[in-house]
């Protein structure tokens, strides 16, 4: 079955992204397809490569990057939500005249249409948020 996942909260602050990750991993292990993970609202904060969590804690961002690599997942970060919160890739930084960028490997920035599309193309859309 095809699952799409929406994540509305940032890493560590809310358990939403933990629950979504463990759900996605379980779905993949059972042979389901995860067609897209869409990061919206504060969920875009999961996509920064600048986090340095305590050594004895999980690394939420790296965990997503690794899952994406292992299963060719499409991790999409909403451009509008990302702009409000200071998440950008190299292209976007150039376009906005910013001197730095912070997107982690495996994430891509795109439009809100990708969420609606995921809803159309998947069998189920599950929202994780606050």
């Amino acid at each position: 079955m095809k699952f799409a996942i929406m994540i509305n909260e940032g890493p560590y602050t809310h358990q939403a992204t933990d629950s979504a990750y463990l759900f996605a991993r379980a779905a993949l292990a059972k042979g389901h397809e995860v067609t897209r993970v869409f990061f919206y609202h504060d969920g875009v904060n999961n996509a920064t490569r600048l986090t340095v969590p305590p050594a004895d804690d999980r690394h939420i961002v790296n965990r997503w990057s690794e899952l994406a690599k292992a299963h060719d997942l499409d991790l999409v970060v909403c451009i509008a939500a990302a702009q409000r919160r200071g998440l950008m890739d190299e292209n976007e930084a150039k376009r906005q005249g910013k001197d730095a960028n912070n997107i982690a490997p495996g994430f891509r920035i795109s439009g809100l249409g990708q969420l609606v599309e995921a809803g159309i193309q998947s069998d189920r859309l599950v929202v994780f948020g606050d």
Partner: protein
Amino acid sequence: MSEEMDMDEGGTVKKFMFVNRKAPYGTIYALEGLEVVLISAAFDQDVSLAFLDDGVYELVKGQNTKAVEMKNFSSTYRALEGYDIEKLYVERESLEARGLSEGDLLVDVQILSAAEMGEMMAAQDVVISF
């Protein structure tokens, strides 16, 4: 970054419901939720909006955000009709608990009982909440 997808999904039309349960301004969910709703109009799906709990406050007339220096987005609800988004459902019990009635709202809506709202939700293909 408006790389919108191919709108033609082989004619798939799904029932999408956007569930609004949060008050405006205190948090951004109502505003960013509305941004998804507007995008969804481009996909020719069967879109409806549900307002219950504090979500009914999104539709209250007379919002004036000058003194809080935030963007007043309440007029956008009036613009939904222009996007052919006309199914706006409001739960009666939520209005009553808040001392509100239909005349306090800035758009025409259909009032549903809690049980009717439950049936409406169950009939959807995709339910997106914020």
